[in-house]
């Protein structure tokens, strides 16, 4: 599917097979680490993480629950500031549970840092993070990543849940967007 690569995509950074293999590895690692531990809850950050979460969860061999949160930044635009607005909180309480936050991409680190702080304040039994992509060149704040899919260069990536203005989110691979696309007006 989606055989034709859109013109806005400069190159495919991570193809379907490469992503699938890495997601399996992450799932195996998480399953081993949480074996025998009760009450694991995966918290997916909308919208970007839903495809990663759907693939990851299906390969876990440990029982777990799934929950979602939705965030919104206070300023529009592409630069991340520290403050984010929690527009939907988790359905269930995380106190005393083993929490794994599932994120699509780690950029400046501000958002994940904020999430870790708010969830830590709820006294979970443990708190870890699983991030599909990391852009180390963009990091502004050091943040704990327990499970990482791939490190990528500082380019705008789309697909597998990641969007550009709500477009290209559902490409089955991760592609780098042409610079002209996101620097235009």
């Amino acid at each position, binding site marked *: *599917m*989606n055989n*034709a690569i859109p013109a806005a995509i400069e190159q495919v950074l991570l193809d379907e097979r490469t992503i699938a293999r890495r997601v399996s590895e992450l799932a195996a690692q998480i399953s081993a680490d949480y074996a025998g531990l009760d009450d694991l809850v995966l918290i*997916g950050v*909308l*919208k970007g993480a*839903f*495809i990663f*979460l*759907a*693939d990851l*969860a*299906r390969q*876990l*061999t*440990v*029982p*777990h*629950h*799934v*929950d*979602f949160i*939705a965030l919104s930044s206070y300023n529009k635009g592409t630069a991340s500031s520290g403050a984010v607005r929690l*527009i*939907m909180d988790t*359905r*269930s309480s995380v106190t005393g549970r083993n929490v794994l936050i599932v994120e699509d991409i780690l950029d400046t680190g501000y958002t994940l840092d904020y999430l870790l702080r708010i969830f830590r304040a709820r006294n979970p039994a443990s708190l870890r993070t699983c991030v599909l992509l990391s852009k180390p060149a963009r990091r502004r704040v050091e943040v704990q990543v327990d499970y990482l899919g791939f490190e990528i260069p500082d380019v705008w990536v789309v697909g597998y849940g990641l969007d550009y203005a*709500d*477009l290209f*989110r*559902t*490409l*089955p691979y991760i592609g780098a967007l042409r610079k002209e696309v996101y620097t235009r007006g």
Partner: protein
Amino acid sequence: MGLYEDVERVLISEAELKARVAELGAQINALYSDEDRPLLVCVLKGAFIFLADLVRHLRIRHEIDFMEISSYGKGTASSGVVRILLDLEQNIEGRHVLVVEDIVDSGRTLDYITRNLRTRGPASLRVCTLLSKPARREIDIPLDFVGFEVPNEFVAGYGLDFAEEYRNLPFIGVLKASVMAGL
């Protein structure tokens, strides 16, 4: 593992799901054009795995939005009225909307959601559900895309849960009666 031992039988296998989801994707590609730019509205949490697989088959331009709902508790079930915990990020006035559901049972919740969305003046409003259980239907609601009709049994997997468990089974299974009884 425990999850698999609780399954009495596999109703729809992983391969059958994969093939059918691809067919549904092709039907959606055929119905809408790039200019329509349909907005797929996913009702959490049950539909997220179905959505994740379905959208990877779409070649038409589209967008995705999420809704999360919660019932008001007993007594309101017959009206289907639910509390919206997360509303759409987008204004759907004049947009082509496709609601993506995991299962249509009585139809009451879906009926309420579609009535709610219709008040916002979308250009069109359609429904795509992975599963439909006709034996349980109380409100006749038009379904534009249906993955599978299932018998009146408790099914779980591929996003559907029982008490928040079994969502991640890669197939749709029928749970053992002992599980349902909480034994």
